[in-house]
């Protein structure tokens, strides 16, 4: 039916006509949607009365953009995409893919030239073009850098695809060094390089890696064992408070408390596991959600121990196994040991490698467990619980080990979080955190470590990078604060990814078992299926 309707419509109207028509529809819909959102604004006047401020101009711009977008998509985008699927009669080949046409050597060289020129004149841009235009220039430079990097990646795409994990780990290990070296070159001094790296290593590197680790931990519960857990942040909180309380009260070191926090979180994982053994799916989700809230409310109300909503401050820093300290007052402070200038950046770089190590430990354990009977049992449990039981798998212990293992990594991440912040309060462990971690697991593709890492980088790094979009002020006016739109864009990105890849970035599951070696199924085996 739909096909027939499509065909008759295509026969009767050119893409241009259809574009006009659909643009009008889209304009009407967006006008209806945005009339109240954008067209009117409530404000207070001098006498504190509520007044309506009409913003017809802005409404017109938004509706116009929607119409233009729809028109371009229908009139030019759709026919273009349709042409991509038509084989050239003469050559018998499909047209060059969009990517190969987009990434060409001349363009690549041009982008390098642009980057080079704008880098050289970076200091004098404001003077030459004025501040507004200079903002655009910097944006243009950022685009050129992205294009150049994307071209390189496109050129080596087969290699990158084949060695993605190893390359990813290599990039992560090299990241702080590259940042420090690059910023040292730009600022012209070593100290400036370290100082400038603070933001990149801390806000981007550590922040993303914490979420990678949390998502990998939750992946064991949700992705492998198929137990939908909406209260994962509870274990993060248990780990954080375990370190915060024991370190401030008993003065134990991080390296002792890290396993302690992990064990305590695992213990609470089992505590949560017992009552929910018989639950699955939605019911399980609700109970775990409640569990997360219970932990948070206990932290708020048990003031004698947790200091309530005020939280715990003065949590000691991590030391390099007691050998090198990161406290300025200590005799073995890193700057004194090596005779270098004082900087907070050393500690951040150290923390970066610490969380990288912890995250890789999580990945390593997950990969190993998947090949072991317990990991296989988790996956089988996700697929079919009844079949599992009739194959002699003890589903009780299987579920509890999944909860405990996932919770343990949450606890590790929590104690790291406490050590990094130096301060914990219940505010850090709200439901939204659980939701974001779960969203990362789902977006990445349940069960896929690589997909989840990419999702964490895109989601957390993406929202962080919006803080850097200063040039947008040049577009939208100086009182525009792009970071306020972070969560809006986060939500939009999630919707788009789910439409585009419903099973996440990496939706396919990597098998763990082979008879003797990896065997590709030849076409003669797959020609026909009887039965």
């Amino acid at each position, binding site marked *: 039916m739909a096909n027939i309707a499509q065909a008759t419509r295509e026969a009767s109207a050119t893409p241009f006509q259809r574009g006009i028509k659909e643009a009008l529809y889209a304009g009407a819909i967006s006008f209806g949607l945005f009339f109240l959102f954008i067209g009117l604004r409530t404000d207070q006047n001098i006498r504190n009365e509520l007044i309506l401020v009409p913003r017809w101009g802005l409404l017109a711009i938004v509706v116009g953009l929607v119409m233009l977008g729809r028109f371009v998509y229908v009139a030019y985008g759709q026919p273009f995409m349709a042409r991509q699927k038509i084989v050239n009669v003469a050559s018998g080949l499909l047209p060059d893919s969009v990517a190969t046409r987009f990434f060409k050597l001349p363009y690549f060289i041009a982008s390098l030239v642009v980057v080079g020129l704008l880098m050289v004149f970076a200091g004098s841009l404001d003077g030459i073009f004025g501040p507004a235009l200079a903002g655009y220039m910097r944006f243009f430079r950022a685009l050129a850098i992205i294009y150049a990097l994307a071209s390189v990646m496109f050129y080596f795409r087969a290699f990158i695809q084949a060695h993605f994990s190893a390359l990813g780990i290599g990039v992560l290990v090299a990241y702080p060094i590259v940042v420090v070296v690059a910023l040292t070159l730009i600022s012209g001094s070593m100290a400036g390089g370290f100082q400038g790296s603070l933001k990149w290593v801390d806000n981007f590197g550590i922040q993303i890696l914490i979420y990678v680790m949390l998502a990998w931990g939750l992946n064991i519960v949700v992705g492998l064992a198929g137990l939908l857990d909406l209260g994962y942040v509870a274990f993060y909180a248990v780990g954080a408070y375990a370190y915060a309380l024991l370190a401030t009260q008993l003065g134990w070191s991080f390296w002792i408390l890290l396993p302690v926090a992990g064990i305590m979180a695992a213990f609470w994982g089992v505590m949560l596991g017992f009552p929910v053994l018989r639950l699955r799916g939605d019911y399980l989700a609700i109970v775990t959600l409640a569990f997360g809230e219970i932990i948070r409310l206990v932290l708020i109300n048990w003031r004698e121990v947790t200091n309530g909503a005020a939280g715990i401050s003065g949590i000691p820093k991590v030391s390099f196994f007691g050998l090198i300290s990161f406290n300025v007052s200590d005799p073995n402070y890193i700057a004194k040991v090596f005779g270098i200038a004082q900087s907070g950046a050393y500690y951040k770089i150290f923390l970066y490698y610490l969380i990288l190590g912890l995250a890789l430990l999580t990945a390593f354990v997950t990969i190993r467990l998947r090949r072991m*009977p317990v990991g*296989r*049992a988790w*996956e*089988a449990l996700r*697929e*079919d619980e*009844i*079949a*599992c*039981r*009739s*194959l*002699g*798998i*003890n*589903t009780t212990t299987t579920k509890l080990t999944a909860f405990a293992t996932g919770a343990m990594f949450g606890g590790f991440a929590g104690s790291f979080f406490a050590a990094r912040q130096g301060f914990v309060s219940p505010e850090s462990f709200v439901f939204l955190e659980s939701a974001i971690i779960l969203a990362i697991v789902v977006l990445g593709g349940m069960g896929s470590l690589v997909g989840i890492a990419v999702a964490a980088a895109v989601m957390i790094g993406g929202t962080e990078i919006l803080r850097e979009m200063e040039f947008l002020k040049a577009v939208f006016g100086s009182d525009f604060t792009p970071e306020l739109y972070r969560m809006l864009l986060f939500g939009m990105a999630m919707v788009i990814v789910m439409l585009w890849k419903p099973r996440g970035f990496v939706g396919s*599951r990597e*098998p*763990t*078992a*082979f*008879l003797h070696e*990896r*065997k*590709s*199924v030849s076409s003669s*085996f797959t020609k026909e*299926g*009887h*039965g």
Partner: protein
Amino acid sequence: MTAGKSLLDIRGVETYYGNIRALNGVDVSVNEGEIVALIGANGAGKSTLMMTIFGTPRARRGTITFAGTDITDLPTHEIARMRIAQSPEGRRIFPRMTVMENLQMGASLDNLKFFDEDVEKVFTLFPRLKERIAQRGGTLSGGEQQMLSIGRALMARPKLLLLDEPSLGLAPLIVKQIFDAIRELNRTQGLTVFLVEQNAFGALKLATRGYVMVNGVVTMSGTGKDLLADPEVRAAYLEGGRH
């Protein structure tokens, strides 16, 4: 075939779903080396009996004895570890796991040293599974899924194999292949098989002995040949009569 000593003994078993009685005092016994078929109409309680042997749902009255041990109240996974393997109703293979991984799941931990040997045995029995070794379970055809389900059960090196409707939804040719494989297992390895079937003709032809179940009660029993010849059975299950 000479009947060995009793392997599975079901005595006066009553099973309920909530307040509804599904099994009303069932007596069935399976001797070593036999193929026993249980036939009956939809809703007669055949599958319930299969599941009751595994303790889900549990028998409210009566006893189930396996190789001299009372298994009525054992947890399901411990019953399975006594070397009773099941190819459950609807096959219940793991759809996102490969054929190989499905077979791995069937192998119990104390049998891992025999794993390669056992896999080869399954592949000899069902060569088609070897062709599909790296394919995900969910992408197999119905017959292949049934083969995988039986193969997975065999990986546990069972003393007793329970099959719940192995012919369900399969083409006659595939049903024949599967029944041949069951007969082969019984003949060469002496495997004891207890199968539940709606395909009464095929099942009774295959079976040493058979039981007929109606509304949660065993109404008739005898050798496969006798039941096939019985006019009542013929009328009810073999000639498309009303039941």
